[in-house]
């Protein structure tokens, strides 16, 4: 009965993707040079974009690929940031090293929270994660050494003497504040690039395939031997780590922390969800598009105070109603273009035609 198996191979790249790899490399090179080219305000803006992008990619990995809709990601931002502050203020550790420690601590925190929240489903999970974040916030608000409810600031020396700042000051004649902006910006750039790289690699691996299966249909995934629980836990820990790193980095740059700000559900989860969903959930491109739109809106409208947020809310509602798969989703559906293809294409002799494919997920 067996039909002779045709000669074939499996491909994941597309022409657009090799093109985008080139563009990506160029953008990266340009991005590295940014602190020398633009004023400080712009560097800070770009820093903001990059860190939001990391948060958005992480949440997207969690919700878009593992189906875990968390509204409590601020817990990792806040915990990471507080870990960093604690390490710097109480132990005199360099902020950059402290940021790495913060990532690890955030991942550690994810273990007990996962034990609890993974018992919950759907809306229970979402609210459960939020409450966990509130609990951690309230506990940290009791930590008087770090300013309790009011919060505290990073000692001036900490950011001023941060590894590398002196170097920049001496070689490029930057002021200390300028140098630390440039430094945090580069770190954010590395983190964003690494996050996208890591997620892209994960998605192209066997684990990524399993993850996509779990998201599409958990029951069927289990039935074909995918360990859905382990898969989700892996993703949850990874996002906690990335989110914690980003959180710590954000607060190295802000240099001031308070529980309300560090655990803000609006800033670190709601806006992030907004970015992901507007850009297109379940794609790597989506959060990138989303964060750029978010930033543009912010810059266009930031002089209008609350009008800006009002517009943001309206744009979110409109996009959800008229392009429920997000801007990138709508674009990709129409053109078939994907910059980060993860689809395994079976190509070979009997399969001369390449069907048009939507984005992965």
């Amino acid at each position: 009965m067996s039909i002779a198996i045709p000669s074939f191979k499996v491909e994941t790249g597309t022409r657009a993707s090799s093109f985008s790899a080139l563009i990506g490399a160029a953008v990266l090179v340009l991005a590295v040079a940014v602190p020398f080219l633009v004023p400080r305000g712009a560097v800070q803006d770009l820093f903001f974009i990059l860190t939001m992008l990391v948060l958005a990619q992480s949440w997207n990995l969690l919700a878009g690929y593992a189906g875990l809709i968390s509204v409590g990601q601020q817990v990792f931002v806040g915990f990471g940031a507080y870990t960093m502050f604690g390490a710097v203020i109480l132990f005199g550790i360099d902020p950059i090293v402290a940021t790495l420690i913060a990532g690890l601590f955030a991942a550690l925190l994810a273990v007990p929270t996962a034990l609890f929240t993974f018992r919950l489903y759907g809306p229970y999970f979402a609210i459960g994660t939020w409450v966990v974040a509130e609990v951690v916030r309230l506990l940290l608000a009791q930590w008087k050494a770090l300013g309790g409810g009011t919060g505290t600031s990073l000692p001036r020396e900490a950011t001023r003497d941060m590894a590398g700042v002196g170097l920049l000051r001496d070689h490029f004649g930057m002021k200390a504040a300028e140098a630390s902006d440039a430094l945090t910006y580069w770190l954010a750039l590395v983190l964003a690039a690494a996050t996208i790289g890591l997620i892209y690699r994960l998605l192209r691996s066997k684990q990524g395939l399993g993850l996509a299966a779990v998201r599409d249909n958990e029951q069927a995934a289990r039935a074909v031997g995918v360990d859905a629980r382990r898969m989700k836990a892996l993703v949850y820990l990874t996002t906690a780590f990335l989110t914690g790193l980003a959180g710590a980095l954000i607060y190295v740059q802000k240099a001031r922390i308070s529980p309300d700000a560090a655990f803000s559900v609006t800033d670190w989860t709601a806006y992030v969800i907004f970015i992901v969903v507007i850009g297109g959930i379940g794609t790597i491109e989506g959060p990138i598009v989303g964060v750029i739109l978010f930033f543009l809106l912010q810059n266009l409208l930031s002089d209008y105070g609350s009008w800006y947020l009002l517009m943001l809310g309206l744009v979110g509602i409109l996009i959800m109603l008229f392009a429920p798969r997000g801007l990138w989703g709508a674009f990709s559906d129409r053109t078939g273009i994907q910059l980060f293809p993860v689809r395994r294409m079976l190509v070979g002799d009997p399969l001369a035609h390449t069907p048009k494919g939507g984005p992965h997920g």
Partner: protein
Amino acid sequence: MSLLQLECVSKRFGALTVADEISFSVGEGEALGIIGPNGAGKSTLFNLITGNIAADTGTIRFGGADLTRVPPMARCLSGMGRTFQIPQPFEKLTVFENVLVAGSFGAQRSESGAYVRCAGILADTGLLDKANVPAGGLTLLQRKRLELARALATEPRLLLLDEIAGGLTEAECHALVATIRAIHAKGVAVIWIEHVLHALTSIVERLLVLNFGRVIGMGAPADIMASRAVREIYLGIEV
């Protein structure tokens, strides 16, 4: 020794008993057919065997081990492959990827190590020309074939098929029977729920009849089909 053995397995949904002290066994390489009216509990029985539904009472043994409390994933890895009556494709993945998930996770291979087998299975199940199409775009018939392809890709010792022949043309049905016969011939045990009786009886050695969650008959197909109960309850033919 029997490959799969159920002892007094029961399951209730509230007041509804969907499996009522079911006991039977399937030997290594055997083929068993299951028939019964709609809602008799056939699909539920599959879900009990594969662990998608936990049994209230009774034990389920597979390959000598007690799997009653083991999750579906582990049952798959120990050699059970199943299809869902209502197909459950991974809609956003392509057909090839759907099979690849089963072929790499279920069969415990590396991803690239599963490519050849998975492509072969697509060819066998007539899905090769749809390999790169997202599974969400398949028709019902194609979805059912994909169910079969995915189950096969896990390299099962026991294949559980839930109504895969409905709606096929004569020629398609023949091809399907040939495929299943070939799998069976390789020593894979098969349990097949099917309303298309001529297809079913051309393969299975025994038939089990379910009604209201209870086993009301078990034996050679010819005997079962001739029995009064089956003619009355199932075939709706006046006797």
